[in-house]
């Protein structure tokens, strides 16, 4: 049957590869091409060499946006993974061992479903809802909890806290998925390992750090990369939730927001493409670095 192998494989791959080549690879190549032009989005293209990248280097908002992406990149994976590990540990192992079977805390099956709910909601809806939660006046959910005589917290309207509000929503939205992912990972850790550790007198904390965490490492690594990529995006939340889209005064601007504005509002597709190219290399570097740094020998 070997002679039938290639037609078989080609038959399966032709359509997806063609789709990928047209809608992803070709678009990438075009983005690279456009990044060295001054194209406005209309009419003929003029090549300008590296001028867009030079402009970018001197653009204050670019560095500001980059810092904001960096902030999210640093905190989003750490906070999300820490919370998700904590919850999934409680859901799976937190109840201790009974009759030789480790189990989660009481009601863990229900919690597992509830944790997943945020993942089911479209990001745009999440953004609108949290816009109400963080509203800067008394009609906001958080401010509504304050005593009537207090001045409202400005939250999204305060440049010191606006980006943190975005981070909170991102974490809230993603934690559920990683709880499920880590739960699945924990489920595949053998009972006998926990049992053995239990017999040796390990407490819950020791169980977590000596057994669960090392055996879950590969899953965590995957999660880290996904979350990092999400931190490079954050466009939908910034676009819908923030004051003046990326404000107040640029306090929540991110690269994706800049790309959108330059393309669709400032008619500077060339410049936006240059930003896109930078984002491409940043994401690639991040993924490669994460894979390298977190590499571990198999346990």
């Amino acid at each position, binding site marked *: 049957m070997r002679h039938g192998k290639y037609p078989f494989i080609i038959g399966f791959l032709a359509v997806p590869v063609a789709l990928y080549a047209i809608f992803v690879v070709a678009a990438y190549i075009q983005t690279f091409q456009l990044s060295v032009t001054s194209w*406005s989005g209309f009419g003929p293209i003029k090549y300008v060499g590296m001028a867009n990248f030079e402009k970018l280097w001197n653009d204050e908002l670019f560095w500001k946006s980059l810092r904001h992406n960096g902030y999210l990149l640093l905190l989003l994976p750490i906070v999300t993974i820490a919370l998700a590990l904590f919850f999934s540990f409680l859901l799976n192992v937190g109840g201790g061992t009974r009759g030789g079977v480790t189990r989660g805390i009481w009601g863990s099956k229900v919690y597992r479903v509830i944790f997943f709910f945020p993942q089911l909601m479209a990001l745009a809806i999440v953004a609108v809802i949290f816009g109400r939660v963080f509203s800067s006046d008394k009609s906001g959910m958080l401010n509504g909890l304050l005593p009537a005589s207090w001045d409202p917290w400005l939250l999204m309207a305060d440049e010191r806290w606006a980006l943190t509000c975005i981070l909170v929503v991102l974490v809230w939205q993603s934690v559920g998925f990683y709880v499920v992912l880590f739960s699945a990972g924990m489920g595949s850790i053998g009972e006998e390992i926990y049992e053995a550790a239990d017999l040796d007198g390990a407490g819950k904390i020791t169980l977590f750090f000596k057994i669960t965490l090392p055996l879950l490492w590969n899953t965590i690594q995957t999660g880290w*990369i996904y979350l990092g990529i999400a931190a490079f995006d954050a466009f939908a939340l910034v676009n819908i939730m923030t004051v003046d889209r990326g404000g107040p005064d640029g306090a929540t601007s991110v690269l994706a927001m800049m790309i959108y504005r330059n393309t669709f509002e400032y008619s500077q597709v060339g410049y936006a493409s240059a930003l896109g190219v930078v984002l491409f290399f940043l994401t690639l570097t991040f993924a490669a670095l994460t894979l390298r740094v977190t590499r571990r020998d198999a346990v």
Partner: protein
Amino acid sequence: MSHITNSELDRRSLLRRAAAVGLAATPAVGMLSACVGGGSEEPAKQATGTKSADNPLGLDPKAPVEIVIFDGGLGTKYATDVDTPIYKKKWPESEVKFSATQEIATVVQPRLNAGDAPDMINNSGAKMMDFGAIVAAGQAQDLTDLFAAPSFDVPGKTVAETLVPGAVEWGSYNGKPYAVNYSYTVFGLWYNATLFEKNSWTVPTTWADFIALCDKIKAAGIVPFGYAGNNAAYYMVRALLTSAGKIGTEQVLKDIDNLKPGAWTAPAVLEAAKAWGEVGNKYLDKSFLGLKHTEVQLRQNQDKLAFYPCGSWLENEQAKDTPPTFKYAVAAYPSVTTSDKLGAAAINAAAGEIYFASSKGKNPRGGMEYLRVMLSKEAAKEFTNLTKSLTVVTGAAEGVELSPGLTSANEALNKAGKEAFMGYLFDTWYKKLNDESLSAVNDLMFKGGDAQKFCDRMEAASQAVAKDSTVQKQTRS
């Protein structure tokens, strides 16, 4: 099968693929603009006819014409029920292909680039196209012939002569008209006439009166002045620059539009920024920075906010939230100094809502004729009737029963007389500068009111645009 069971290899390549999926966000730029670099080729064959007194634009009476209307606050009824029937009555053999969309750029921009342009386009809404870029790319039809043609239903006058002063200039780029700005919007301080009557508050004409009244309003437990910082800061930019225009005439605003060095640091702008910055410091509710325009407008409807800077579309926009006792009225911005060059009644009224004929379409002459129909007195009157907004056609609102707000706007216009001025265009010409002005004005009004900082920051941004060779420049005089 060994390559499948090698799980370590498998997992790592899976991770790499995961990373690649995340990267898919980037090429969206190239994808969404579609048909990159199009529009440079020769246009398709265009329909023309012979010019005559009856057919001043020389269109082909049999050629179909395609129009695209923005389906927003103005609706589409004025096009389908008024303009098209009038057009069809005159040109029964020309088919009118009508479509409406809420996303003009998404629908029309790829078609412009692909050389398949509709003939007449209403460029408006949140997804409007950058019109300066369209003109620069040669996609918009020169409308000189249209404005020089005889009016559709006012005998003895050209189209241009039937319009309010400045209407043609408003759609001109480097001296040539490319757009019809159809609606006419009066900007000022909007308030509830009933509330003011009840408290016997009188509308201020000087800044001292304005401040004194704000104190009284504040004492009554109402926020004296406010706007939505979240998405409507441009109302505040307009208020500030209108004051600057009143202090130093429209020339101040022309300098700003022309990116003249020192335009933003001119004494008139600084004076206006100082005056408004003080209002921001004392009378603005700081939490408004996080609110959207609908939320702030609702507060005004609930009499929790006295003055709101806006345009005359406000009444129509709020129609369903306005209680029956609430009567919209508009006041001109008070004079900032006693030596203002324009009078206290001077008002900013601007033409807006761009309609243009595409130069690369199949029937640009038909598109222009459709515009001529829109600019007829009959069509304009019906437009005001249907949409509750004024048009640039002079006297077209006569005989239309106007709402309280629109009546007030009309009165304010009459009071201003020759001192009604169009204002500025930099916000549509240079979107980036516009965005900077939104951030800067929010900073001024909500975060301390440093007028000098506002001026310096805008000056720097304006000069950065002036030096950027990739931005197409416009001038006005």
